[in-house]
């Protein structure tokens, strides 16, 4: 069981949201996070996203970073900085459904410091159904990320036809 974890650990990059900085000349002291799945992660302040409300069921976890294992592209993981073993597999929502256009509330946008939908990246949390080994994306509770403010929020779409388990593919 350690083989896939080791393979992931050797090729993981932490996604950066720095704007205008020179590569290599970053500010702040990195946090070293140890996770079973990704090994040691060096996370700089410009790589940390603040979720003021956490995620549903994980309200106490506020800081996350995005880890991108090369072997699983385009899949990335939203990793909780305080409990790095809590890692949500995520995909860009538009790669799950090309014309995905959820009705986002002003409150949701304001939580991430955005005025319009164009400022936010929409991500979908993915999971594998262990009985059928199929990959699904949650398009009913999308993750909003504003890369400029580095804030995130999980929206809940009340009146919506989007699926909680949108089928993406089978193994």
């Amino acid at each position, binding site marked *: *069981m350690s083989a*896939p*974890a080791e393979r*992931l650990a050797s090729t*993981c*990059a*932490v*996604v*950066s949201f*720095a704007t205008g900085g020179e*590569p290599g000349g*970053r500010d702040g002291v990195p946090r070293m996070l140890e996770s079973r*799945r990704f*090994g*040691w*992660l*060096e996370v*700089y302040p410009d*790589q940390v996203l603040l979720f*003021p*409300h956490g*995620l*549903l*069921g*994980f309200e106490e976890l506020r800081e996350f970073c*995005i880890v*991108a294992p090369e*072997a*699983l*592209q*385009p*899949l*990335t993981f939203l990793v909780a900085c305080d409990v790095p073993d*809590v*890692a*949500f*597999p995520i995909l*860009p929502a*538009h*790669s799950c459904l090309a014309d995905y256009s959820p009705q986002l509330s002003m409150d949701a946008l304001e939580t991430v410091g955005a005025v319009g939908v164009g400022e936010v*990246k929409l991500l979908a*949390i*993915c*999971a*594998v159904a*262990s009985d059928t*080994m*199929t*990959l699904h994306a*949650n398009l*009913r*509770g999308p993750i909003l990320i504003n890369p400029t403010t580095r804030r995130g929020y*999980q929206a*809940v779409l*009340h009146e919506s036809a989007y699926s*909680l*388990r949108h089928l*993406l*593919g089978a*193994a």
Partner: protein
Amino acid sequence: MLVVSRKPGERLRIGESIEVTILAVRGEQVSLGISAPREVPIHRQELFERIRRENCRAATLKPEEISAMGACLRAAFGEPTEITITTPKPAQ
């Protein structure tokens, strides 16, 4: 549990900042209007629970499910990720 009977048009106040108005009662359905500060998230309980369960499931995938995910992804995608990775992890 506190049980309060209210008529349409009547209100309830919860704490200093949350106000619940009974807007209408039609048969089995009650319409509520809720005023609350922005930092108080309001969700329908069943949808909230379902998304919470999905989150818990996604956060606790087993290694074999991650491996299966790789196979599913290869079946579903050929495109690169939207997020540009600018900072490779330094070698340990």
